[in-house]
């Protein structure tokens, strides 16, 4: 079977960055917190491949460790929202009735809100910028798209022969849901999760960029980019490299989503 190029390049980009993040303690050339003021604003060179920042800290090492934070936040947010969306959407689609009506109204409301703005306001109001707070804010609105997707798919699957047969046999509803409906949702959910990861990484980076992300002591790609913005004249490399990694990772997830859609769902 030939996989589309998007899938291959996407997996390659994600895989490489994931490896770099996991191996950060082994391969990072310097300590990402070691301040060396005499080494400020070194341009990229043979000792510091990506140069050094305003405190003389090695940028490459910060990027490698920052990858851990960005990836960990994105993966937790997408797993939590996917799980919540799957549960709520399943009950709405399969159960129907008043609960379905209420939930979908609520989902409409979340879609009616410009999501980033709400997340921004919540993070700003929570004061303490920490990883759990960040994950909390990103999860608040994220589940809605999965719930809507799952509900839609289930409404469609409910009419399918194999589900009707299972119902006629008198199988318990949860069994039908778990064994006869959920397996059919894997494709669409994986595609959505892939795009979800791309969006979450951009959102998290944007918040960190504005200085509202995880505490400044933990470098993330967004906060590196945000700090570098003030030194565009003397050290443009501070803006270049962290942004490059954001784009490569987001591109990886977007391509993966496109490739999966082409592989799993040829009719689109």
């Amino acid at each position, binding site marked *: 079977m030939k996989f589309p190029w*998007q899938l291959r390049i996407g997996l390659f980009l994600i895989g490489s960055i994931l490896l770099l993040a996991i191996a950060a303690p082994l391969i990072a050339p310097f300590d990402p917190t070691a301040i060396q003021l005499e080494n400020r604003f070194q341009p990229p060179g043979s000792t510091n491949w990506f140069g050094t920042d305003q405190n003389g800290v090695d940028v490459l090492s910060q990027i490698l460790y920052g990858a851990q934070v960005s990836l960990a936040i994105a993966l937790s947010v997408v797993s939590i929202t996917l799980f919540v969306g799957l549960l709520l959407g399943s009950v709405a689609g399969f159960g129907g009735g008043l609960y379905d009506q209420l939930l979908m*109204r*609520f989902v*409409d*409301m979340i879609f*009616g*809100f*410009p*999501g*980033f*703005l*709400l997340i*921004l*306001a*919540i993070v*700003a*109001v*929570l*004061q*303490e910028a920490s990883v759990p707070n960040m994950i909390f804010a990103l999860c608040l609105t994220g589940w809605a798209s999965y719930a809507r997707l799952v509900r839609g798919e289930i409404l469609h699957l409910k009419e399918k022969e194999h589900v009707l047969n299972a119902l006629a046999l008198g199988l318990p509803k949860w069994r039908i849901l778990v064994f006869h409906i959920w397996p059919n949702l894997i494709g669409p959910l994986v595609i959505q999760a892939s795009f979800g990861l*791309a969006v979450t990484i*951009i959102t998290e*980076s*944007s918040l960190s*960029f*504005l*200085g*509202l992300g995880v505490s400044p002591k933990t470098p993330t790609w*967004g906060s590196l*980019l*945000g700090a*570098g*913005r003030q030194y*565009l*004249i003397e050290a*443009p490399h501070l*803006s*270049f490299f962290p*942004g*490059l990694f*954001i*784009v490569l990772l*987001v*591109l990886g997830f*977007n*391509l993966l989503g*496109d490739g999966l859609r082409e592989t799993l769902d040829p009719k689109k």
Partner: protein
Amino acid sequence: MTYFFRRLTSLIPVMFGVVTITFFLIHMIPGDPVDIMLGDYTSQADRAALRKELGLDQPLFAQYKNYLWRSLHLDFGRSLQSQKPVFKEILDRVPATFELGLAALLLAAFVGIPLGVAAAIKKNTWLDQLILVIGSLGLSFPSLWSGPLLIWLFAIELDWLPIGERESWDSLILPSVSLSIGLIALLMRMTRSSMLDVMKEDYMSVARAKGLPAYKIYFLHGLTNAIIPVLTLLGLMLGALLTGTVIVETIFDWPGIGLLLYQSIQNRDYPLVQGCVLFVSVIYLFANFFTDLAYGYFNPKIRLES
């Protein structure tokens, strides 16, 4: 007309929800909001005065009722920083954001739609592939990177354009380019797939069989039909545009609502934060509402079915 009213009534619960959520924002502050807003070095009297002004001395339900009532009358309180009414502060910033958003939208339309049409006409050629690749890159290119890069290249290295700051007409160029990159990619993809659908239709074969010139086939018969689904994207794009302005305006020091929101967060000016979030959300809701109306107008099937 019934469609209009039905859509309008469905707007009300969402509006209500938006107001409720912004109300609770101030109550999500851990600890005493007055302490956090004023800092440690203020007198008891000042604190009590602010508490009273924000209505925090009243029971929660009374506060909520009050907030609803005042929001209906466009009274969002006073900015802690400037002491001016929040609504006035926001209105002062509307023209800048409007200008930036419109420029980005026009740019996206004039670049994205023709490229999408070209990709559809030349389907499966190198041109189509190239446009697709550019599309994927564009969607993954957030303004938090394109902004600094554009400033570095065009304002610092080449010194061709000003950074932003809304002083002359050319200061609009860099921020709107930065804001429109993602939108161009989105419009391009949507136009391509919509155009491909339309090209399968019988009337396109008829147009070809009549021997019409290519531009008439594709633009007069093709694009006018293909544009309808693209229009629905407009609502979605407006959301991206409105949230994108926070980042872009901050990077380019563009004095719009996005920058106001950023500054008010920095200053812990929570009434202003609340006002900005509410204002932008309501604009967003109405934009979606009008998009739906336009969609219903262009496609009567939707209007009659739903």
